[in-house]
């Protein structure tokens, strides 16, 4: 139920005093209430939207940093696996695949 979908704010407007905006979700556009993030959001920003309300502004720099850190770790893991496999075949053992 607490599903939140990230979408990009296309434009902002008001509906009878309520801050609203059009948000693009990968091609699908919808009117979203921006009242809770109105002081922090501008067109072009990514918002996390739940039942028609933006409940948070997504920190793009943070999203990128987290991903890069994780990706680096995964490459490390792959290197380790290669090393283990190489060692195992040298030892004449049957090498398993990467982690199941």
């Amino acid at each position, binding site marked *: *139920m607490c599903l*939140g979908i990230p979408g990009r704010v296309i434009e902002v407007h008001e509906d009878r005093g309520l801050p609203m905006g059009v948000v693009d979700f990968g091609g699908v556009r919808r009117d979203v209430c921006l009242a809770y993030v109105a002081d922090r959001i501008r067109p072009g920003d990514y918002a996390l939207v*739940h039942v028609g309300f933006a*409940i948070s502004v997504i*920190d793009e720099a943070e999203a990128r940093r*987290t991903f890069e850190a994780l990706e680096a770790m995964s490459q490390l*893991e792959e290197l380790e696996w290669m090393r283990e496999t190489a060692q195992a075949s040298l030892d004449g053992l049957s090498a398993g695949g990467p*982690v199941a």
Partner: protein
Amino acid sequence: MKYLAEYRDGSIAQALAAQIRREATRRWVLMEVCGGQTHTIVKQGLDELLGDAVEMIHGPGCPVCVTPLEQIDKALQLASRPGIIFTSFGDMLRVPGSDCDLLQIRARGGAVQIVYSPLDALELAIRNPDRQVVFFAVGFETTAPANAMAVWRAHQLGVKNFSVLVSHVTVPPAMTAILGDPQNRVQGFLAAGHVCTVMGWEEYEPIAARFRVPIIVTGFEPVDILEGIHLAVRQLEAGRHEVENQYVRAVRREGTVPARTLVEQIFQLVDRKWRGIGEIPMSGLALREEFADFDAELRFGLGEIHVAESSECRAGDVLRGQIKPHQCAAFGRTCTPEHPLGAPMVSSEGACAAYYNYGRFRVTQSAGA
């Protein structure tokens, strides 16, 4: 879509799981309290990736599942009345009440309408001034700001034919109740990312300190969840018990302050019964007296309702983590998503439905044969 694909990356998930397995010196027991996370864990088999390192218990993280039977029965009563348009999020329609569900009421001619947002329900009221529109306001703290705004707007715009049937619940009191249970096995929590998006994590700090459990604010994608588990295991291995934020891209310590402020203005904390669990002190939200005009229970004079749950259904034991869904005798036999006995089999975010839909029951059937 941006910032979605990255967090579904299979090789990163595998690497994280391997790291967790390496670092765990014993089997740790963690609980997620979020139906979305439960769904991802079971669908992607994340718990299986972790092997013996971590046991995941699926806590009461599905608002649909814990909405008390009394409130479902009240919804059914309202939806049956002529002149009322009963509006709800779609996932409430198949939740079994004492006699039937909202979908059956609609089949019998009741005006039951699914809405995407509570503001859509309010708009329906504005467009149908000769009808009463009731919205079924359920959910955790994530949904409360939306429902609070619908009430506030109705008040502001003077919409007289709109009201709400409120059955809101809040997560931290449920975590406290679980940790305080003498049979508790949970050693660490993944806190629901979107609940914390609204509320921040200040409330979790005293819980982590009092019960000496790590609490990790965690997102919803497979990589988020595995990273949250990794942070929890690291803390457990080091003997730490702090609140840590994995979902940095969306959650700040103070949450979304304007949303919290309006929720506090419209709602107050009350004792609330959780289906399958029982009453948890100060775990629910109800309308404040200033907004009692919008309370559907008062407007339509709904009194106390006495109900009896199915004796076969062990939803309470599942929600408290005492058994896994497939350990219930009714699971997959007398209780299926088509004919659910309890709410966790209805909602796709319920642990029982997740186990059923992703084939976990086949394992049991062969094991039990």
